[in-house]
């Protein structure tokens, strides 16, 4: 297996994440797209770590940090979505127009 394959998969995942980010109307789906982005990063880090830095395994450590912070971010995100759902009864991004762009 070559390093490039992993990178390609990660890049593809990243693109899917960006696509989801741009097109989703549901706030939860946007959050999931962000998770996809972070997972593509994790894949990148793991691949690099395995191939280039097998001794230091800094990438793997980095990936652990990314996972834990992604969890924190998701928790905060869901909490906010919950709060907004209580107030507005919807999680549709199109409906959030109190603040004009």
């Amino acid at each position, binding site marked *: 297996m070559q390093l490039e394959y992993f990178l390609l998969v990660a890049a593809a995942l990243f693109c899917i994440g960006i696509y989801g980010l741009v097109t989703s109307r549901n706030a939860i789906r946007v959050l999931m797209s962000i998770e996809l*982005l972070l997972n593509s990063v994790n894949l*990148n880090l793991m691949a*690099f770590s395995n191939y280039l830095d097998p001794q230091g395994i800094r990438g793997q450590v980095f990936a652990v940090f990314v996972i834990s912070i992604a969890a924190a971010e998701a928790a905060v995100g869901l909490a906010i979505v919950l709060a907004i759902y209580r*107030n507005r009864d919807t999680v549709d991004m199109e409906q959030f127009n109190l*603040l004009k762009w």
Partner: protein
Amino acid sequence: MDFANLAAQLNTGVILPEGIVLVTLMVVLVGDLITGRASSSRWSPYVGIAGLLAAIVALYFQWTTTTNPISFLGAFNGDALSIVFRGIVALSCAITLLITARYVEQSGTALPEFIVILLTATLGGMFLSGANELVMIFVSLETLSISSYLLTGYMKRDPRSNEASLKYLLIGAASSAIFLYGVSLVYGLSGGETRLSAITTSIVANNGEQSLGVVVALVFVIAGIAFKIAAVPFHQWTPDVYEGSPTPVVAFLSVGSKAAGFALAVRLLVSAFPMVSEQWRFVLTALAILSMVLGNVVALAQTSMKRMLAYSSIAQAGFVMIGLIIGTDAGYASMVFYLLVYLFMNLGGFACVILFTLRTGTDEITEYSGLYQKDPLLTLCLSICLLSLGGIPPLAGFFAKIYLFWAGWQSGAYTLVLLGLVTSVISIYYYIRVVKMMVVKEPEEMSDAVKNYPEIDWKLPGMRPLQVGLVVCLVATSLAGILSNPLFTLANNSVLRTPLLTPATIAPPASGTALLDQPSIHSSNSTLGG
């Protein structure tokens, strides 16, 4: 490797200020649990401020006693530059705390928790200012960001606050994911290095002087940084978040968080990407031009004070970026100086907005009309801060701008400086519009909000600190320019004593802007000399 040896290697003394902030945070948190809400909301702001001031004192001692700044095996760098930036972040948090108490009190939410989250954000910002390693950068960046999301959504019954928070979270998380993708590429390109100082050498060793991969990584990284400092076109979140979130949070975001973003930008771009410095200078030049033009022009059309300040802060970020782009000692020093001055004038402005909102419950610009008759102190303070933001002499903002433009001009960034000058004139227009509303309007033109202006009562709980914050900002904004020598010496020393920035002077100045400014300084010098 025994424990004592390891501890010595970690050099933990460097993060003493952060340690103090952390302890303060825990004291507030635990104290709140023990003493109960009623009493803790009385003492917690003061504990927070005391802790931050102690942290600043600790920073001062680090400044005077030069020891080995590298700690945690290279993860954290406590050099002079980081000390100054950490000081800015801590100071902005301290002033924010001063002006927060009454606001949170009146909104009916819990104050100690707010302070805990704010201190966490400060902690993240301070660590970010000194972070010297990719994991460290990411973790502290996210500490700052996640706390900011929470703060933005703190008024959880207010749908506007919710909405601002959600938008901020989604855009912020996406941008930090993009940033992270760039970082992962850097990690790979450098062959598995995460320390910034080691990255450059190994990238050059692995890929030669320049490679497409580095440029791609650079673009992703800049996207993340530009989001943090709210540079156009990564600014879309700013007006919405500023309008929707509680005003003290906006004050902190516009100063503390932005300063931390600039610290990150300096450290990351200068130390990890010197081989593509032309490219990143070029990209930042474009961002700075867009920020100055768009920020100032769109601010003209705003009707809400907070939105106007949001666009103004975008434009101010554009000005500050000039210092980063030119990359000379004078440039970095004027950037630090500008941020120091910006801290006082912007926080002063927000303190006034908070005070006005507390008394009238609105922040529409038209509602300010005739305020002169009812509240001279507020009018004076807001006028001074806004005029200073607009760069009117002899206020601090004028000197800060002159420093910045002069540094830019010296290194030949003529286009940027001229654009900065022109957009400053535009900015005077919208700042003076507010001053006109307050000062010029006759009593009969007074807005409803001002007509029903409550009695000025500084004795309400939490009002005294607000008054103190207001006066501190007022005095600093009026005098920091005229007496700018010590401040500028500080800014200058912070650059000169930072080993990271010294090679920057050897690099050809304005190499990025040379793309826009033909002829560059060297050729123009020769023509002038002849």
